């Protein structure tokens, strides 16, 4: 498994050191690491393509080749361990020529129509071709002619742009443990195929979109809702309502050149208002609502001896994963809809009534860090208002493209506020964007609602951060409540297998499909890597800290919503609009 810099530093403290020479410079590095890892530790840049931090290495692309004195052939630095006394040349003529030739071979059957590609500007193949000085195509090979796979509601696959680096395959297998895709056939006919050669839409793909983040080229991208949203915005007969997810405000600055981790809430609101939405609302409003519903569901299950642990249901990738791989845990999963879907149901009922708008003339658009949200809003169950509750779901990337298309420079926008009342939210909703956030928000409210006391410390540091599985406990009315948090479905399996075996000590579990939670979602700007995830998480907690209200049950707009419309939390109306059910799916 490719190690992070931090892990390597740790390894350095413990392991035996070996002496190697990188372009003549002596370096002492831990035994057992690869040449590439040693280079990164010592501050030498080696270009890579099929290598990816956090995944196993397989040395397939031969872009990271280096020259090792005494070895007849160049070696792939990502899979070659360092040895005592190794003399390594990182950029000799032979190395540069080999890398360039290998890249040219990869380009020999590539479409070479960068201007028409979703990844124009964020493509690693394009960037390497520029850096290596490829200015002509020496090998004009036979091209591939695959049909573009549009069968999935979330992920579009264009195998013609695929360079077979396998990063998507390894991500799906090693990070998500879904294994929806793998290499099929051999030689020139090799391609990445969903299970059994079926279209992706019929596979166990959970629509998380982590493969899109992993893809260095335009072979994988989201199924776009951009054109439908333009049509809605420009239709004078439609009242178009926008909701923006917690994680979008800390990442949408990136495509506009702002550093990762910049909080752009106000600018983002101003930008989308100028894009033409009739109202700019906040998914954070319904994140608070989710906490009220899910908090009461938890309290109810504890009191009435219902099924525990309760598992969160905000992440539609996790939900589909559960339906395929853990259908026996269906009753453990909260019946609460995700904040996106609660928002749609409330907008087309409560808000539509309030404004005197016929819900058939209302279009609800969401901007999500997520590709699975596209799938979620199209689920048959998600029509509580009598119409599809959320009509279109854009990824952060698509939203940024729309702003650019209209010439809106997000970084130059003034700070504006969300519209009322579906734009009012607390810090508890803000932290939904990071792994552990839903749990933290729930604990803040569950504690105060159950005990009637004020929670002294609002920050639950134990559930924050990027450890795969985190846990905490909190005494509530004399009961020790054990909670756990997992992000990335490979990590989630550790908790789920315990629940399945009946030996889980937890009462409440949060699961997010994507590593880092929504800030690392499959719809986020590219690149999304470990460092960027950490910066976005820091920004999320900054948003929380700076809000006057930090507990969902103190949100005045939510209180009013119950008074005016919903009645009791978990009551009949709330149940109809805000709760859902699941279905077992085939493990194809």
């Amino acid at each position: 498994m490719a190690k992070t810099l931090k892990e390597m530093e740790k390894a350095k403290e413990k392991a035996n050191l070996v002496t190697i020479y990188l372009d003549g410079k002596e370096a002492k590095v831990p035994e057992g690491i690869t040449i590439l890892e040693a280079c990164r530790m010592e501050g030498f840049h080696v270009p890579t393509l099929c290598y990816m931090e956090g995944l196993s290495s397989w040395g397939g692309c031969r872009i990271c080749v280096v020259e090792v004195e005494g070895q007849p052939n160049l070696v792939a630095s990502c899979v070659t361990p360092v040895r005592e006394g190794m003399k390594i040349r990182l950029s000799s003529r032979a190395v540069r020529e080999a890398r360039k030739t290998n890249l040219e071979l990869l380009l020999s059957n590539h479409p070479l129509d960068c201007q028409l590609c979703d990844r124009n500007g964020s493509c690693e193949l394009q960037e390497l071709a520029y850096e290596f000085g490829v200015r002509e195509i020496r090998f004009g090979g036979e091209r591939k002619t695959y049909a573009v796979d549009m069968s999935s509601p979330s992920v579009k696959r264009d195998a013609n742009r695929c360079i077979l680096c396998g990063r998507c395959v390894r991500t799906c297998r090693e990070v998500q443990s879904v294994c929806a895709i793998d290499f099929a056939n051999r030689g020139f006919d090799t391609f990445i195929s969903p299970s059994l050669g079926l279209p992706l839409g019929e596979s166990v793909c959970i629509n998380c979109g982590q493969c899109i983040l992993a893809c260095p080229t335009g072979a994988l991208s989201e199924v776009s809702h951009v054109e439908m949203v333009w049509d809605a915005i420009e239709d004078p007969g439609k009242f178009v309502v926008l909701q923006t997810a917690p994680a979008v405000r800390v990442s949408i600055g990136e495509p506009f050149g702002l550093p990762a981790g910049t909080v752009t809430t106000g600018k983002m609101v101003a930008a989308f208002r100028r894009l033409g939405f009739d109202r700019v609302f906040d998914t954070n409003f319904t994140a608070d609502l989710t906490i009220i519903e899910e908090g009461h569901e938890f309290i109810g299950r504890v009191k009435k001896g219902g099924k525990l642990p309760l598992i969160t249901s905000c992440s539609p990738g996790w939900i589909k994963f559960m339906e395929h791989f853990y259908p026996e845990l269906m009753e453990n999963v909260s019946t609460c809809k995700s904040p996106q879907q609660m928002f749609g149901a409330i907008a087309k009922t409560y808000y539509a009534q309030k404004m005197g708008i016929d819900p058939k003339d209302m279009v609800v658009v969401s901007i999500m860090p997520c590709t699975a949200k596209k799938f979620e809003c199209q689920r048959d169950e998600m029509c509580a208002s009598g119409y599809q509750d959320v009509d279109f779901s854009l990824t952060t990337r698509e939203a940024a493209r729309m702003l650019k298309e209209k010439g809106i420079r997000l970084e130059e926008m003034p700070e504006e506020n969300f519209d009322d009342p579906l734009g009012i939210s607390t810090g508890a909703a803000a932290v939904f964007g990071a792994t552990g956030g839903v749990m933290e928000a729930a604990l803040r409210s569950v504690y105060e609602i159950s005990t009637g006391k004020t929670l002294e410390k609002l920050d639950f540091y134990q559930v924050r951060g990027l450890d795969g599985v985190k846990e905490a406990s909190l005494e509530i009315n004399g009961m020790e409540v054990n909670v756990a948090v997992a992000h990335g479905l490979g990590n989630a399996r550790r908790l789920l297998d315990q629940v399945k075996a009946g030996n889980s000590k937890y009462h409440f579990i949060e699961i997010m499909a994507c590593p880092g939670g929504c800030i690392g979602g499959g719809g986020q700007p590219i690149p999304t890597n470990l460092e960027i995830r950490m910066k976005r998480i820091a920004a999320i907690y900054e948003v929380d800290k700076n809000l006057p209200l930090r507990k969902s049950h103190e949100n005045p707009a939510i209180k009013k919503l119950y008074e005016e419309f919903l009645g009791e939390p978990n009551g009949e109306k709330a149940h109809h609009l805000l709760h859902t059910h699941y279905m077992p799916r085939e493990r194809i």
Partner: protein
Amino acid sequence: MEESLYREIEEIIEKYREEETPLLCVLQEVQEKFHYLPRNVLGYIAKKMNVPSSTVYGVATFYSFFETNPVGEYVIRVCKSTPCHVQGAFNVLQALKRELGLKEGETSKDGKFTLEVTSCLGVCGVAPAMMINDVTYGNLNDERVREILALYRR
């Protein structure tokens, strides 16, 4: 698919349970039974062996001796590896196409022959070579191809 066939597959899987890499053995033996590996059979094998079906599909499509589509009674596999290529594999393939009226990957209407190309058969010493089901034929030329086909046409 009939219930009894599923049971047969389960028996095959059971037989190789102790093997270190049972998947290849299972696929081979199941193919012997069904002549090819239908999609639902691959899915069933994946489920029973607790291997991702994408992996099973990847293996079944990687090896040219595994068939994922129905094949004829006799599967002719012409080696296209370098030594055979140098010794005239192309002509052998042309002769077969002419004689059988088939293209690569096709099966004759009477269900008798399927024509395919394959990677190295490991008999480079008698290149160009081909296999018909389990039997290997080397030192091929147009005339040999006609003679051999005649044996199977009877």
